[in-house]
């Protein structure tokens, strides 16, 4: 993949308000950030800080109240439904806390699914799904359904599914939230390896502090605003002090 653009994601004064009766909840209130290509960024913050809202905005899953999101320098508000679907299918891979695999499909079929939408032919789909699942260490589990896999294995399938279309960005919303310490660490390391190997930008919304060790930068969010952005080195220095 050619490095055409310096920034994979840019947001400008991004805001999302929810009106709930008389109160307006500012889930996100003016977030401007630039995320470089092949960066590993973690978005940290307590529950309700706006992590998931931010995640949904840059994933093109929800429309902002104010502000702009650019993916590969394209303002996603300018995209029609067709182009937005293409963005989701081809440019972004999603990983969720609850894995969200299709329960009736096997691991292979789950990984093949995004390639249907990008028009990859069937033989190629099978080949790439096998390759990707083998890459995440599930070469022996191709024909198992999600119910027959452990949480860590399911998340590996989800990561394979997110990466199989060679996206620009992988968005992960609390990917280790439902996993134990050890399995969570394995998933984090897997994502880091794939980040380095495939030069894919990885954006994690998380409150798992283990994530700091592999992140290039950490973005701290509180009450819908950026509290601070730190590099891993800065966090490490603080820990020493």
């Amino acid at each position: 993949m050619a490095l055409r653009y310096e920034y994979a994601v840019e947001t400008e004064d991004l805001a999302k308000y929810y009106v709930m009766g008389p109160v307006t909840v500012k889930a996100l209130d003016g977030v401007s950030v630039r995320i470089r290509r092949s960066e590993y960024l973690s978005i940290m913050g307590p529950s309700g800080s706006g992590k998931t809202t931010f995640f949904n905005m840059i994933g093109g899953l929800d429309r902002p109240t104010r502000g702009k999101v650019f993916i590969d320098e394209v303002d996603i508000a300018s995209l029609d439904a067709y182009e937005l679907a293409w963005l989701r299918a081809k440019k972004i891979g999603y990983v969720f806390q609850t894995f969200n695999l299709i329960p009736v499909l096997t691991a292979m079929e789950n990984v093949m699914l995004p390639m249907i939408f990008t028009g990859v032919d069937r033989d190629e789909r099978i080949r790439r799904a096998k390759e990707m699942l083998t890459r995440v260490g599930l070469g022996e589990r191709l024909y198992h359904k999600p119910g027959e896999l452990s949480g860590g294995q399911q998340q590996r399938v989800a990561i394979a599914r997110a990466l199989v279309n060679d996206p620009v960005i992988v968005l992960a919303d609390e990917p280790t939230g439902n996993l134990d310490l050890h399995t969570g660490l394995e998933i984090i390391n897997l994502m880091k390896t794939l980040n380095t190997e495939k030069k894919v930008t990885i954006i994690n919304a998380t409150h798992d502090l283990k994530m700091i060790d592999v992140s290039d930068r950490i973005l701290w969010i509180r009450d819908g605003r950026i509290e601070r952005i730190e590099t891993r080195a800065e966090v490490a220095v603080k820990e020493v002090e």
Partner: protein
Amino acid sequence: MAKEEGVKFPLSEAFSFSLESIKRRFSRAVITMASIILGITFLSFLLTTGRITSSIQQQSGTIVGTYQIWVAIIALFICAVGIVNSMLISVAERYKEIGTIKCLGAMNRHVLTIFLIEGFLLGLIGGVIGSLTGWGLATLWQYVQFMLQQQGSAQFQVLLISANLWMEFNYRDPLMLLSNPLVDIGLSVFIALISSIVPAYIAAKLSPTEALRYEA
């Protein structure tokens, strides 16, 4: 964006997706189909019996009471409501799945297509089973009756008449038309498709964030 850079979901893929979905959620499909099978069986049984009776007595048309026709119509309405209900539950069960495939690139119309095809397939399978059962039972019922009355020629006639029903398309009389089991299959598909519209539309309109937030 260039034309080839667009999401694709050809009808063949939608078909295999829906078919897999029915196969692997078979108990749900059986429940949905049950109502349509019962409705169509009832209609088919009624009309086939009527046609055989009237043909044997060498009358034109169908001997079916107005009362019976109304019961059949109401049965079909109940069957339609049953399908709507069952499909709505099926959509609710699959909120997360719908949210997920939307994240993977499915558009509203793709989701709509998936659920409409599911409705179509359920209507087709239910219609085939229903009209074969209704027609078969009616034929058997009449055959046994004439056998008990020891009317050998009528017995044979029964089989001939009901076999003929498959090839007869009488567009002037709706009751005559519907006594063809093939037309009943068509009716079944039609009812199932109409009943799937609302559930499919609800599924298609789901926003991915809402669908993913939903906890089953």
